[in-house]
């Protein structure tokens, strides 16, 4: 059976409002008890970097919200390994609990395996 909702996060955390408003939508959906998946791909992988310090911009730190995902029982969190490699980010440097690396083929399986996609 296919799963309901997959959120696809494609943008860097502070260059625009996509990451922030996407995360708002993710947390709202999780708060309603939906079984959701979250995929970080392209520049979206930058949202996962540890030690973000955007206070001087000033912007709120999004990674604090991200780390709340397990508390909302969001257990299916994926990151596209090729996107990480292209940007020189080692998977081992990411600290988000429950994060799984997926290759391009597995991304395709994820996209086709969900009823609805929400892209940010």
């Amino acid at each position, binding site marked *: 059976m296919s799963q*309901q*909702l997959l959120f696809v996060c494609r943008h860097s955390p502070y260059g625009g*409002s*996509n990451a922030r*408003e996407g995360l*708002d*939508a993710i947390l*709202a*959906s999780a708060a*309603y008890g*939906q079984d959701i998946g979250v995929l970080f791909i392209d520049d979206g992988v930058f949202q996962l970097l540890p030690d973000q310090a955007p206070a001087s911009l000033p912007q709120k730190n999004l990674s604090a919200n991200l780390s709340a995902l397990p508390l909302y029982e969001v257990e299916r969190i994926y990151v596209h390994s090729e996107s990480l490699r292209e940007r020189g980010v080692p998977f081992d440097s990411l600290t988000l609990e429950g994060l799984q690396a997926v290759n391009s083929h597995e991304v395709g399986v994820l996209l086709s395996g969900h009823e*609805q*996609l*929400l*892209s*940010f």
Partner: protein
Amino acid sequence: MKFALAIHAAPFSSSASQTALKFAQALLAEGHDIYRVFFYQDGVHTANELVCPPQDEQNLCREWQSLARAHSLDLVVCIAAALRRGVLNAEEAERYDKAAQNLAPTFSISGLGQLLDAAVKSDRLVTFGA
């Protein structure tokens, strides 16, 4: 088939908003149902009644209103995104002590739960400008 539309792009600065309107018109012409149109991110600017495009250009806000009236569409604007961008109904204008409200008639303001509800209850969710 039951569709939901999510519009994330601003009117005028992106063609995504025009495409969404055309798509909605085509769906209704083909006999499909539109469960809800949810305006999020810069899409909330679509509901700003104060936009004044030149006479010979499209007024997306007005076109959504007439489509909504003709087909009883549920046009919902995300409250968090709208407040950040200065799109307010009378109630929110009073709450935040603002002198004016600018939410166009036929649009309503509500929370992100309405986007989730639309995604879950529709056969297809189509996003514009993501």
